[in-house]
């Protein structure tokens, strides 16, 4: 089981409590598709992904970014058992979506960078460390049921 200090819990809940999902979700997903273009392979039915501008303004990608970001809510509410909380989601990502689990890490890195841009210098090293730890646990849990 992952051990969380009180400070880490408070950092994570505080980030998500003040998170603007409608802003951050689309930015994180579109950044991932631009910075790591091979991730576009999972979005064949999402319309125009022809260039960065198209991706940034694509409403389907925007909506999906919000959905994915809200997917983290259950982890925030169940920090002491993220592994089991995401067991079903992991199976779905493996058997239905067929997503290479390495992509979870790429999206997590983009999310970190988008939040750093939003928070500026308020995104301290300690906050980055707690957030990195949280995302690593989530990424790990989502890849766990692959076989």
């Amino acid at each position, binding site marked *: 089981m992952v051990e969380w200090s009180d400070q880490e819990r408070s950092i994570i809940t505080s980030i998500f409590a003040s998170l603007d999902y409608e802003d951050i979700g689309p930015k994180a997903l579109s950044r991932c598709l*631009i910075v790591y273009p091979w991730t576009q392979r999972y979005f064949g039915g999402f319309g125009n992904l022809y260039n960065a501008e198209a991706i940034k303004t694509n409403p389907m990608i925007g909506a999906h970014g919000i959905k994915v970001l809200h997917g983290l809510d259950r982890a925030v509410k169940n920090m002491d058992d993220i592994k089991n909380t995401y067991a079903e989601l992991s199976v779905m990502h493996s058997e239905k979506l067929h997503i290479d689990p390495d992509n979870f890490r790429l999206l997590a890195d983009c999310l970190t960078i988008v939040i750093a841009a939003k928070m500026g210098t308020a995104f301290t090293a300690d906050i*980055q460390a707690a957030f990195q730890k949280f995302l690593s646990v989530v990424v790990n849990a989502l890849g766990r049921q692959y076989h």
Partner: protein
Amino acid sequence: MSLNQTDKERVKAFWSKVAGRADAIGAESLARLIVVYPQTKTYFAHWKDVSPNSPNVKKHGKTVMGGVADAVTKIDDLKGGLLSLSELHAFTLRVDPANFKLLTHCILVVLAAQFPADFTPEVHVAMDKFLAAVARALAEKYR
């Protein structure tokens, strides 16, 4: 995934905006590396003070970022231009190349936090490719 002309132009243009703060960016990036990825402290066991605000970290961050600044000027031939740095990393420092990715990520986080308007997704991909190319050049002589 080599650098094309657009990447190079984006890197040079963005770098000219941030170069004035290179020392602080370097110090901040290295501080974050050791806080977010504590295993990287193993490379600094010879320092008495490995805390993120220590003078050692500030000075070394400046040194590392100086290397990145130099790499920007040699962007058309990183392998040739960074030859002596490559030998240093291969034979003396022997930093596991996996750590270059971790430091790259920390540098990108600092750039995003300090230049949110300029660090667009297009600049992000160019900088990520550039730092990956620098890492490859540094690891050139490892084996």
